């Protein structure tokens, strides 16, 4: 296989991986610590993309718009935590699923009212347009920027959880929320901050996706399924697991789509190989999940081990 194509597919896989990581980090923390299943996590992803596009159209400055969209989505996250999630932490998962499914419908309808049913577009900034030569092959700058921004967010999160006092409260709250409260820490506030942080990270992933593909209603639901696969593979509640799982899923999915048709074409007709390859590629990550679950039911890097 052509090495420059392999490099390109690897970078594509990494780029999908870091976006999945940004989504998975918040979802896995909320699920692992508060035991809360938030189906509407994908709505934060969609909101991030729409708000960034809207602010860019208005101010024409990309980074301030992105920052504004993250802050606004974090505030929406706080509101959702206050009004919906907080009431359901102790409830059965079924109620959480039902309530947050309702939130998906609500946010989709809200976006339809505000921005109309048509997809909108988010232009990447001029300084990220064009290509960059990597090992002799051209590669879009925006995708490289996405990989770098994703990895930097991962580092920041690792520092926040591993090295700061807030991170200690988060980990202590995951172990034993009653005891940390009895020792003077307002764990309700910590949970709200985690929820808002997760929303902001999802919004960042959404804005990244928006620079590559159209910003549209329902974009969050498609990627949410992949995100759940990521946190199950990585181990629920584990941010490190989310990173490993996200990169794994991103690479397997991308390699599968790029390589399987060619591999199959060696043993069957081209048109058949293309169709079969595409179908098998979309199953590859579920296969990966099944294998991981069979070997390590608790995920690759479980939070409590």
């Amino acid at each position: 296989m052509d090495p420059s194509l392999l490099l390109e597919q690897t970078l594509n896989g990494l780029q999908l991986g870091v976006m999945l990581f940004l989504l998975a980090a918040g979802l896995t923390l909320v699920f692992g610590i508060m035991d809360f299943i938030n189906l509407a996590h994908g709505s934060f992803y969609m909101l991030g993309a729409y708000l960034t596009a809207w602010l860019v159209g208005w101010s024409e400055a990309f980074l301030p718009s992105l920052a504004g969209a993250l802050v606004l989505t974090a505030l929406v996250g706080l509101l959702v935590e206050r009004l919906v999630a907080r009431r359901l932490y102790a409830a059965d998962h079924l109620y959480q699923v039902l309530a947050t499914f309702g939130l998906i419908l609500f946010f989709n309808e809200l976006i339809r009212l505000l921005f109309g049913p048509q997809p909108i577009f988010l232009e990447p900034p001029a300084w990220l347009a064009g290509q960059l030569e990597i090992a002799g092959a051209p590669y879009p700058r925006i995708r490289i920027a996405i990989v770098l921004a994703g990895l930097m967010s991962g580092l920041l999160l690792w520092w926040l959880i591993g090295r700061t006092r807030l991170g200690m409260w988060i980990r202590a709250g995951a172990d034993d929320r009653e005891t940390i409260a009895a020792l003077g820490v307002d764990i309700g506030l910590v949970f709200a901050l985690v929820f808002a942080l997760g929303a902001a990270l999802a919004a960042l992933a959404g804005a990244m996706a928006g620079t590559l593909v159209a910003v549209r209603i329902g974009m969050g639901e498609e990627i949410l399924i992949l995100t759940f696969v990521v946190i199950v593979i990585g181990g629920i509640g584990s941010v490190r697991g989310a990173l490993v799982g996200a990169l794994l899923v991103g690479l397997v999915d991308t390699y599968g789509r790029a390589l399987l048709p060619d591999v199959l074409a060696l043993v069957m007709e081209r048109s058949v190989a293309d169709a079969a390859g595409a179908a098998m590629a979309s199953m590859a990550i579920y296969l990966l999940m099944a294998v991981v679950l069979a070997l390590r039911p608790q995920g690759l890097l479980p939070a409590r081990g």
Partner: protein
Amino acid sequence: MLRLEAVEAGYGSSRVLCGVDLAIGPGEIITLLGRNGMGKTTTVRTILGLVRARAGCIRFRGRDVTGAPPHRIARLGIGLVPEGRRIFPNLTVLEQLIAVARPPREGRGWTVSRVLELFPALAERRHQRGRTLSGGEQQMLAIARALVLNPVLLILDEATEGLAPLVRREIWRALAALRREGLAMLLIDKHLERLLELADRHYVIEKGRIVWSGTGAAFRAEPGLRARYLGV
């Protein structure tokens, strides 16, 4: 400083506390004695707001804290050493202390480095995670963790349970040192003789009611008490 008046509490439909009256003055050391399942731990949990008081009133440092959330009550100045130690398994010794430390109200307070001086065994393990500690080390950590809150009242629920005699002696030594600092304490423990040496007053609880209270001398003077309420 702390006063419970006719406090009732329970779990679900069962009532565990049926009107508990209890008071602790500044710097005073009291004990809560009683057989298994009489409501000692429930009393402690109700003081901290972990169990809701269904009736009665809890006042701490002049404020009505009945129904207040646990973190507020703790911040007013209660350091809890919970039954079963409840160490955070995934945080290091140092992290558990840093996470909950609060500045002293006045003068020289408990800092992370000072509690590590009180328990040298912990200092050696400062970078180890909670789950790797021995039972005795976990108990010392639970006490150290409560001290860095700089409380005015320390509550110890079965702090010597399940420990080797040598480690137990270490804990009693630390409590005697805290007594000399003038820290008020509420002690629950199975070692009656040690409690009688250390504490100013005692409360005996039976089936959720205080059935006797008085000084150590008064307790010793009433030989029937032990057999009737403590089964010893």
